[in-house]
């Protein structure tokens, strides 16, 4: 299985990245201008990579489906970004950050990648501050930190509840600076439909221009996917509704293996679903759990107003079950605990599918002003969306589909199993194991983009300096374009009766019920059958109105949902194959007597890596063994 060589450098863990940087091949500055890099996606990973690669002198072609790079969904991350600065003198270090991520991911991540992510985190904060990201300050003028779920130190940098927006705009400013200097060319309003592979190497993409409908071919010496996650597979999720797996799935179909697809984070503090028209679930930052206490009434079906329920009749179930971490347990643990209470009949609200997040005590202790300074804009947002005032009564929250730890398999160089095709940020699988800790996503995305990819892609490109720019009329481009056109033609030709959204909703419900927070063999098997049926019905009865040669948002959605039908099946297959519980992947068959996730290290201490073998053909499961040389594998306990 030579294809699965993770290429982890030798030497002690703490020296691997330095050793690797010292040994990779470099590209002479004068030669970089001869090399074109295609970069898809402009979230924090894509924008920071575009910025760094442009600065190095490569020609970067950036593609995004939005009207401008600044809108990618990193913009919505609220709470913060981690780094091991130890500004709070609370014993933090690169090793401790690394350890927390490995443990938080329930020992299903690759040690070397995680250590590197922790290592570059400090440099990332320096870079962001220099670029003008206005992180929160203490009265001294120095940077402030706060704590986040799953850890016992304060290492999270934040900018009100707008951290993602500020970090993204910082990276975007680097990107547009390179655009101004002519090193980056931005192609907005483009959907990537196919990856072009020539002689076994990624050399281009086929895109649909979302304004004119034109199908365009673009070539480069390497292709980078920074396309984010696929949490919208649940239909309702915390993601932007435009988020999709189209480019990643196209890469998978062309030979990029997909790792741990079923590792999906269900975020504990989202606004609950309130009705059937709802198109999206809004996240309330995890940082709220620093001061907010989560509870349900001790009495089943208690319909009293929460403010009138006395203290001793409230069940602060996280504090009860996990006295050490309390409300700051990791997301997967908090989500399952909320589901457990609601399933047992203690949930609140009309649907019984929500729990309280209460700031009453914190406001009493710290004063309204202090709470407002920390969470003001989040409280405002909550008030706008629900009409309820969290300064006066508890918020109501429920878990929602959020982040995908799974993604394209990459080696230490962030390269997929297709040479020349790289994947960075959320779109790869590499750093968060089976569960991501809060404020880890911005950290990974920016580390990948600013500092890691620029080194590793140089190594790949170092022997390509004599490779001329590729014309886009070769047979591989022609056939990839034909595949793209055929798919669009087929979607338009169905001309059925049901809308794309109605199929997406039904797929989302199957995924949520049987491949969501809790999974079991019967449910996953049922889901596989149900998705297969739904997929057939989709291709028989979907209605895509309008024409191809114009703005056609229904066609865009149809492409996305067609991919999700296939990806959904892969999620279920992956969840079925992993008969243990780990992190966010909870198999009912594998739990402790207290209902906690029970890993089976003897059989599942590996990355599940799936190879595509054609439509309707069973994919092949490969395994990358996970070796832990620097941490002792333990039961993951937050009690």
């Amino acid at each position, binding site marked *: 299985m030579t294809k699965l060589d993770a290429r982890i450098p030798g030497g002690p863990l703490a020296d691997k990245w330095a050793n690797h940087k010292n040994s990779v091949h470099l590209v002479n500055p004068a030669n970089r201008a001869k090399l074109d890099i295609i970069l898809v996606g402009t979230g924090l990973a894509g924008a920071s990579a575009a910025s*760094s690669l442009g*600065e190095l002198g490569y020609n970067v072609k950036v593609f995004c489906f*939005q*009207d*401008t790079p*600044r*809108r*990618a*969904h990193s*913009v*919505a991350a609220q709470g913060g970004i981690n780094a091991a*600065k130890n*500004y709070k003198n609370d014993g933090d270090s690169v090793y401790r950050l690394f350890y927390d991520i490995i443990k938080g991911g329930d020992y299903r991540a690759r040690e070397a990648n995680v250590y590197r992510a922790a290592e570059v985190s400090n*440099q990332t904060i*320096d*870079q962001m*501050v*220099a*670029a*003008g990201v*206005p992180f929160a*300050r*203490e009265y001294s*003028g*120095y*940077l402030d930190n706060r704590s986040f779920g799953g850890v016992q130190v304060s290492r999270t940098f934040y900018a*009100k509840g*707008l951290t993602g*927006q500020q970090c993204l*705009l910082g990276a975007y*400013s*680097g990107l*547009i*600076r390179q*655009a*101004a200097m002519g090193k980056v060319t*931005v192609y907005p309003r483009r959907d990537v439909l196919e990856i072009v592979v020539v002689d076994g190497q990624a050399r281009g993409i086929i895109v649909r221009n979302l*304004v004119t409908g034109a199908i365009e071919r673009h070539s480069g010496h390497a292709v980078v996917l920074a396309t984010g996650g696929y949490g919208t597979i649940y239909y309702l999720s915390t993601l*932007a*509704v*435009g988020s999709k797996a189209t480019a990643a799935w196209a890469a998978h179909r062309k030979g990029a293996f997909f790792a741990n697809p079923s590792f999906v984070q269900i975020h504990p503090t989202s606004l609950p679903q309130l*009705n059937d*028209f*709802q*198109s*999206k679930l*809004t*996240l309330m930052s995890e940082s709220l759990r620093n001061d907010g206490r989560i509870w349900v009434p001790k009495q089943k079906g208690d319909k009293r107003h929460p403010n009138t329920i006395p203290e001793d009749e409230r069940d602060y179930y996280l504090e009860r079950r996990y006295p050490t971490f309390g409300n700051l347990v990791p997301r997967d643990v908090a989500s399952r605990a909320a589901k457990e209470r609601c399933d047992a009949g203690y949930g609140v609200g009309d649907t019984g599918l929500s729990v309280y997040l209460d700031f009453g005590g914190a406001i009493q202790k710290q004063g309204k002003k202090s709470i407002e300074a920390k969470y003001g804009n989040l409280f*405002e*947002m909550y008030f706008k*969306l629900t009409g309820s005032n969290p300064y006066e009564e508890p918020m109501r929250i429920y878990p929602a589909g959020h982040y995908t730890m799974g993604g394209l398999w990459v080696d230490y160089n962030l390269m997929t199993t297709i040479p020349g095709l790289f994947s960075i940020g959320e779109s790869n699988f590499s750093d968060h194991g089976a569960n991501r800790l809060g404020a880890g996503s911005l950290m990974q995305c920016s580390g990948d983009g600013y500092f890691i990819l*620029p080194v590793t892609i140089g190594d790949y490109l170092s022997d390509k300096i004599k490779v001329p720019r590729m014309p886009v009329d070769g047979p591989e481009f022609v056939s990839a374009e034909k595949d793209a056109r055929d798919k669009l033609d087929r979607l338009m030709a169905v001309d059925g009766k049901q*809308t794309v*959204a109605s199929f997406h909703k039904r797929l989302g419900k199957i995924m949520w019920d049987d491949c969501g927070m809790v999974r079991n063999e019967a449910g996953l098997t049922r889901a596989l059958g149900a998705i297969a049926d739904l997929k057939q019905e989709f291709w028989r009865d979907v*209605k895509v*109105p*309008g024409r191809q040669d*114009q*703005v056609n948002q*229904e066609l865009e959605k149809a492409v996305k949902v067609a991919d999700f039908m296939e990806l959904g099946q892969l999620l279920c297959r992956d969840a079925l194959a992993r008969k243990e519980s780990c992190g966010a992947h909870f198999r009912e068959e594998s739990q402790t007597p207290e209902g906690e996730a029970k890993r089976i290290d003897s059989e599942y201490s590996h990355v599940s890596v799936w190879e595509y073998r054609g439509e309707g053909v069973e994919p092949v499961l490969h395994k990358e063994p996970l070796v832990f040389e620097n941490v002792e594998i333990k039961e993951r306990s937050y009690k």
Partner: protein
Amino acid sequence: MKIKLKIWRQANAADKGGFVVYDLDGVAREMSFLEMLDYLNTTLIQRGGDPVAFEHDCREGICGSCGLFINGRPHGPATQTTTCELRMTKFEDGSTIVIEPFRSRAFPVIRDLIVDRSAMDAIMRAGGFISATAGSAPEANSIPIRRERADEAIEAAACIGCGACVAACPNGSAMLFVSAKVSQLALLPQGRPEAAERVRRMVDKADELGFGHCSNVGACEAECPKGVKIAHIARLNREFVRAAL
């Protein structure tokens, strides 16, 4: 709820466009404004019609994609609210709602309610950045910044680039948008070395792209969904004068 919608339909940039009226029954008060439009589109598709094209993405008020001119106001009747955050509870049963794209010489219509706002990217390209090349940054805490100053910077930085300020302004000026970036970076010590060049280039670019001049009307501040203050335009003016001296 039963409502009447008067919506601007335009096939493409070359098309003349015009209003089309739709009677929509079965609207729930719990819907968001965009969910109401989703619902309208579902009924249009089911009747064999062409759905209304409109832009949206995060649906939580932060990406800046959505932006509709609703009953004569950018983002509709609620203050400091983006179109996607707007709820149907703000409208009465039986009411008529007029929906247009953001109008500005610098924002050509692409289709229906979607406009081309790439001119805002062009302004940013002219100078909306600090030239901090990756690898050259000093240790983050070596640049202390007074807390009040950092807070003020973030208030400016909260701009989502939606273009409501341009649509609200009788002159079609983008000055609130430009000033948000100029002000954020001028407030931070990291941004000072390029401050003069930045303000000159961004203001010149806005002029060149056909945005109007600021005449202190204040509509931008009133309609900004993120509450960006017109005081930032005052700071921009100071920076501009200082740059000229």
